[in-house]
């Protein structure tokens, strides 16, 4: 708690630096000012992150995004003037799509390069299996850095809100199929998938679910097993 107070003091103290820098300035001082503003922005962002933690604000995403956005730097002064500094900041922060896309590219490119280290590279005239993946992975790493940097410095599109229920249930239903199809057979697997998938929709109705499950099970057995004669396990192995 005492740390919180300290952090608030840091935020409150920042204007001093700013006022000093806001005197009429030539090119050099302008540069200094930009750097200083950036530093202040970062400090404020870090501070707000910390405040979010202290105050148990459940918006971890925003706290992190704060660090990822230059709009912090632009808006530091304005929001300091407001009563509820960190809340105003949090609203202004854009959780940049580009920044996270860049991070993702860096991660995938990095992994690709990392795992390609054992494959022989060969020479340009005799390319080994590692040549192409290393080239592409390295390139992806670079692109990721640029995309992330751009997301970091420009105000780009915000990531839409995301919902856990459809995400988890749809993926879960597919995973259920993967886990059950071999042991329990097609009939049971289709039923389980339908139930799990259907529940991804928040307005689920029991009767509808029962009818849908029955119809889908019957249709998939009819079409894939009896008409197309695909080699499935249809019923559970009771061994």
């Amino acid at each position: 708690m005492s740390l919180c107070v300290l952090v608030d003091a840091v935020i409150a103290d920042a204007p001093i630096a700013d006022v000093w820098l806001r005197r009429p300035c030539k090119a050099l001082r302008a540069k200094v000012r930009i750097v200083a503003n950036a530093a202040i922005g970062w400090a404020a962002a870090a501070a707000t992150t910390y405040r979010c933690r202290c105050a148990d604000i459940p918006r971890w995403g925003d706290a992190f995004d704060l660090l990822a956005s230059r709009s912090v730097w632009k808006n530091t002064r304005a929001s300091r003037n407001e009563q509820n500094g960190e809340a105003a900041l949090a609203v202004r922060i854009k959780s940049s799509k580009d920044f996270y896309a860049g991070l993702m590219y860096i991660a995938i490119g990095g992994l690709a390069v990392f795992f390609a280290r054992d494959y022989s590279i060969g020479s340009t005239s005799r390319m080994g299996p590692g040549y192409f993946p290393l080239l592409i992975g390295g390139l992806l790493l670079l692109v990721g850095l640029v995309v992330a940097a751009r997301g970091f410095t420009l105000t780009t599109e915000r990531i839409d809100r995301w919902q856990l229920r459809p995400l988890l249930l749809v993926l879960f239903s597919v995973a259920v199929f993967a886990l059950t199809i071999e042991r329990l057979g097609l009939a049971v697997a289709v039923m389980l998938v339908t139930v799990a998938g259907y529940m991804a929709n928040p307005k689920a109705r029991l009767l509808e679910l029962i009818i849908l499950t029955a119809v889908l099970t019957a249709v998939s057995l009819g079409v894939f097993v009896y008409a197309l004669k695909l080699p499935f396990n249809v019923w559970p192995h009771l061994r």
Partner: protein
Amino acid sequence: MDLLHNLALGFGVALTLQNVLYCFVGVSLGTLIGVLPGIGPVATIAMLLPATFSLPPVTALILLAGIYYGAQYGGSTTAILVNLPGESSSVVTCLDGYQMARQGRAGPALSIAALGSFFAGCVGTLILAAFAAPLSELALALGPIEKFSLMALGLVGAIALAQGSLLKAFGMILIGLLLGAVGADTQTGTMRYTFGIPELTDGIGFVVVAMGLFGFGEIITNLEKGEAREVFTSNVKGLFPRGDDLKAAWKAVLRGTGVGALLGILPGGGAVLGSFAAYALEKKIAKDPSRFGKGAIEGVAAPESANNAGAQTSFIPLLSLGIPSNAVMALMVGAMIIQGITPGPQVMTERPELVWGMIASMWIGNLLLVILNLPLVRIWILLLKVPYRLLFPTIIVLCCIGIYSLNSSATEVGMATLFGLLGYVFIKLGCEPAPLLLAMVLGPMMEDELRRGMTINRGDPTVFLRSPFSLAMLILAVGLLIGIVVPAVRRKREEAFQE
């Protein structure tokens, strides 16, 4: 008179009872998924691939092609009646089509869309027939260096024509190339990125990736958005357009067909881009641009013609060069490989009945589609009333069965789960997944050609600039990129996508 001879051969193949039947099944399915928002041709073709195992190659390709161009017809119905794009290529049709429906002119809108599509489909098929053979002769003369540059141009095209940020699209291409590299190296047999999983030895199945990204990923996103539909069903009367409608629309149909056909051939092109460009063009040259967005019939005629022309002509690079130009064509490559056909220019000479049968079937398919979409439009409207909450579990079940039936591998279904998650993340981060799928299919071919070309030329990279064809391709690619980066063009491109 080679063309006539070839077309005669093609119709001979396409007009057998079985092929007409499967063509009908294909275009009906295409119309169905075109009408239904939330499921596109990529996921459907991926879903149906396993079911085509037992069919003869030409029948399988006729069926799958029918889904793609059929979807372009169906998409307009939803756009006009519900103000939702049934297909991504019908996004701009919503603008004026829905306004026409609100003014009680849904009938003319639907019929002009179908007739324009039919006209464009016929022209597109003719262009395909005229250009496929000469291009494939040219392609036979290409060496590895030239092929590499050609495919590189294709990927650059996919980047340039993707929606949103160029760099992000480039990143998606690179991820696709990496995914294509998974599996045993073709020349040394070294296992790359397989992590000891036997299913990965032959590479990641692109059906798995396509279902994950385009099937599951999109279902999750659709569920998040929720559904709100308002169907103008009672207003569909007087299907036939008035005289002044026809007068206003026929030039737009011609222009839309031209724009769509041209953009469809471009690498990375296809149905979507053409429709945007055609709409923008109509608005630009109209005497009174303010009518657009308020029910201008040209705003329906042009993009609907364009997306159909583009859907047909995007088969040209596939059939003549063996190089897919978009995600749907990448899946067609997969279908050919499953059938034991190596896509490439040699297909045209070795299996002429395949290529010409497919081309002829497209004309038959377009004819069937007009019948399906005009007199029978009420049936599709009924289907629009099926709520998404019943639809998406069905799609999940069909996708699961589709993936599993490919190799009877539960591991692959598990992998599709991961790609579903990845697809969702891509959509959330504004990364378009279509270029990835294209790159994944082109990747192994490109790597092969690159290694072969470098071995032949003793590792001298300047050979890319010394071969005139390769140089031309690379200049085109660079020109395309510069063109997009130049601010003026860039703004236009963004405008076109926004509308």
